[in-house]
């Protein structure tokens, strides 16, 4: 019994090392100007703020990820995006899974306050996130998503709530 307890203690102590590394990296990223990979970053500070007419969003279809910061809380993350029919979309998957719900908190935050800032190619765009969970347009948007990314997003997964889709409208 004593050996078992010691083995558990040793295992827990060894597990502490990677946990500390992950926690430190996550905290460090919070103080950075934007996100890196999966950890949330700080507010998007650098980059000129776009003003003027709405851009032709087709250029995002050749960009793997963009940086997005919500107004509340002012944390930022790196996300996938797609353009369809002249409109810009972002989304969050795994929303029906336990891990997904713990991991992805921004969709619920965006539903409460949709004001967001995107940074694409060093230019910041002020947007308003409007969730879309039904409609004929979902077929085309899902097709655009799967054409760009190795994603299993379909109209059904959006309507079931496993994928939360937002249109990034101008403010």
């Amino acid at each position, binding site marked *: 019994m004593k050996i078992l307890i*010691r083995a558990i*203690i*040793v295992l827990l*102590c*060894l597990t*502490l*090392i990677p946990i*500390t*590394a*992950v926690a*430190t*990296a*996550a905290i*460090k*990223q919070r103080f950075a100007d934007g996100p*890196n*990979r*999966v*950890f949330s970053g700080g507010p998007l500070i650098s980059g000129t703020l776009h003003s003027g007419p709405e851009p032709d969003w087709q250029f995002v279809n050749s960009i793997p990820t963009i940086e997005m910061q919500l107004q509340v809380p002012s944390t930022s993350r790196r996300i996938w995006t797609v353009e369809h029919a002249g409109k810009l979309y972002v989304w969050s998957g*795994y929303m029906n*899974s336990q*891990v*997904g719900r713990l*991991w992805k908190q921004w969709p619920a935050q965006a539903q409460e306050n949709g004001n967001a800032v995107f940074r694409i190619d060093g230019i910041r765009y002020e947007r308003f996130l409007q969730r879309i969970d039904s409609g004929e347009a979902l077929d085309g948007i899902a097709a655009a998503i799967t054409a760009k990314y190795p994603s299993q997003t379909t109209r059904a997964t959006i309507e079931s709530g496993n994928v939360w889709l937002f249109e990034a409208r101008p403010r």
Partner: protein
Amino acid sequence: MKAFYLCIAGAIVVMVLAVLFVPGVDDFVEQTFQRYLGRAAS
């Protein structure tokens, strides 16, 4: 066991300092975490 605890404490301090100050370590940690997170979520 005392020596073991000291080793673990030392390793944690070294790990924290490495993540904070050695270029690329934070990115490596994040990349590895992302891999495991993606696997857990799917």
